[in-house]
């Protein structure tokens, strides 16, 4: 076991996967000698050579398009998109191609690949270095969407994503890169995709969250506990395909639900959770479901701390559903 930050765990996971599987390779912008702008790929070129970790020309479309071809022809590409905000030039390749290759070929051709990308706010990056794009991609059948929130999960889920036979978008909460630390096993291990993580058990209010919102929710829950409200915090970890049964069970267990994400509200991931609960277990609900989200605006710059859901806003929602 080593005590690692989330970014170190990603780095460790990449190394473990690359040691295990000679067909894996890492590429993207500035991932080589610089080691990535966040240092996720530090040391990879030194250890695995320029053939397996290299910089590309500045084209996300090219990065993802070529990754699809590599994947279709026996390699395991792990492509980095420097910020999720810059994934949109590759949207076509992801949505039209990677996500649909298996389906349109009747399973004859597939694209087992991972797209790693930092997402979310909190670094004063303004509207083009802060967005959370999980809703666009969870809405894309054929693509898996994974978001870790702890160093342990970051490494285990990343290796599981790399081993997975389908294309996985691996979204890394950049706000947590260096702010969370935790025990991470040495060598290879996986955390199964499409499984939930219970962060905290509680009988009063269930809070669904993922990524950078998990520690925010934990702090709110700790404050709520001081006034006797016990929260059941569920880290979704894999947004697509989601463990729906697990979500419904967790919702039923308290009858009071809050969802939290920093992405905009309208058609956001919280809406899906809410609809799922309403369709299946509404008879267990003691209060209307509350969503805590970013605003339906572009991501601000100087005012980002007002935009991002924080402990106050989560607590407000927890108290509201509790006292309903």
């Amino acid at each position, binding site marked *: 076991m080593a005590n690692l930050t989330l970014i170190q765990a990603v780095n460790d996971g990449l190394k473990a996967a690359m040691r295990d599987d000679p067909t894996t390779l890492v590429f993207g*912008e*500035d991932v*080589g*000698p*610089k*080691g990535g*702008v*966040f240092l996720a790929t530090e040391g990879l070129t030194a250890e695995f050579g320029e053939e397996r970790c290299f*910089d590309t*020309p*500045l*084209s996300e*479309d*090219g990065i993802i398009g070529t990754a699809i071809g590599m994947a279709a022809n026996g390699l395991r590409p792990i492509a980095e998109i420097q910020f999720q*905000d*810059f994934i*949109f*030039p590759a949207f076509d390749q992801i949505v039209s191609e990677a996500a649909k290759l298996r389906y349109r070929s009747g399973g004859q051709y597939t694209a087992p690949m991972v797209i790693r990308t930092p997402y979310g*706010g*909190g*670094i*004063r*990056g*303004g*509207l*083009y*270095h802060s967005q959370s794009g999980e809703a666009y991609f969870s809405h894309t059948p054929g693509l898996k969407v994974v978001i870790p929130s702890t160093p342990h999960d970051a490494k285990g889920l990343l290796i599981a994503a790399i081993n997975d036979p389908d294309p996985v978008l691996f979204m890394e909460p*950049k*706000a947590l890169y260096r702010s969370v630390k935790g025990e991470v096993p040495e060598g290879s291990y996986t955390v199964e995709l499409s499984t939930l993580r219970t962060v905290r058990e509680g009988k009063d209010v269930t809070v669904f969250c993922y990524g950078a919102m998990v520690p925010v929710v934990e702090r709110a829950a700790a404050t709520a506990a001081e006034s006797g409200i016990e929260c059941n915090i569920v880290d979704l970890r894999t947004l697509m395909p989601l463990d729906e049964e697990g979500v419904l069970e967790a919702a039923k267990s308290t009858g009071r639900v809050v969802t939290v994400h920093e992405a905009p*509200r*309208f058609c956001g991931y919280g809406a899906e959770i809410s609809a799922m609960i309403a369709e299946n277990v509404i008879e267990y609900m003691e209060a209307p479901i509350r969503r805590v989200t970013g*605003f*339906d*605006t*572009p991501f*601000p*710059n*100087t*005012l*980002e*701390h*007002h*935009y*991002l859901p*924080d402990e*106050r*806003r989560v*607590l*407000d929602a927890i108290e509201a559903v509790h006292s309903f």
Partner: protein
Amino acid sequence: MSDSLQILAADGTLVGERPALDDSALHDLFEHMLRVRCLDERMLKLQRAGRVGFVGTVLGSEAAAIGSASALAREDWLWSGLREGGAAVMRGLPLSEYVAQMYCNANDTAKGRQMCNHFQHKGSHYPSWSSVIGTQMPHAVGAAFASQSRGEKAVHAVYFGDGATSSNGFHSGMNFAGTWKLPVVFVCVDNGWAISVPSGNQTEGEYEDKGIAYGIPAMKIDGNDVLACRQAMADATERARAGEGPSLLVLKTYRMLGHSSSDDPTKYRSEEEVQSWREKDPIDRFEIWLTQEGVLSEGERKTMEVELTEEIDNAIHEQESAPPMALKTLVEDVYEDVPTHLKRQYNAFASVAERYGSATVGDGAFPL
């Protein structure tokens, strides 16, 4: 591969045609370049002091930005990338607005919404760059279409880096401009690097050869030679105004510092390479020639630097006390009018603040 246009050699000797500029115009050109250098140095100090979050300098490439843009007419447009803020100042962006943008405060015309170093100035037709590499190129082409459709003479100059030539926007922009024969000047500022990727790794070809594929005349220029940069832009805009269509200028220069204030370039490039470019400094070489010509007096640069820094410091001083953006701007400018759902979201947010106090600023820092 073609030779590059040069008028002033690195040692300050005139090797080309003397520009048709009088002494005071030459002096102005020098002052504009020096102001940008002083601005960059001052902004870096502010960044180190924690006053601004991010600085993307043009240090070492002042000739490329200032020389080329100095040949644009008032009615022309400058579609910018990260490093053309100094050209905006030359074209009329007040220093106070420049600094307000760096502070992202309430005086910033973009309402503090963009990261630092994303300037705009409507008065001189200078839209801000989004941050997404390459997207501004088709914009310039469409805007040139609009200017032409109204019978106006405006030329649209669009600036971008060597890295940006790999983007989709470069290729669709060049293709459309060539096909439609529009008054656009594509200005590729090849500063040797796209963050940590050397410009030789973006393409196997030569940047100026990319014009051929689109039927666009292209030219390589010594980007540290202010007179060559100016001349090339003057020729390209003349062509464009005469209805002869777009041009591609490749200004070969060097990014002397990191990609931005948070990048450490020693991880990926050698000091020898940097030193070799230090010897080609665009301001030093212009100074030598201007001094020989008697346009600058001995030691005048020092005095000018002091004055320019004072001018910048005054602007900084003025902006230090400006308030941050008002909270209600959170939901403004998404649409022309604030729609009902955003009013509702804002009210809910305000009521949380009433009950629990206001949000606290986080401590996240920009990595690049």
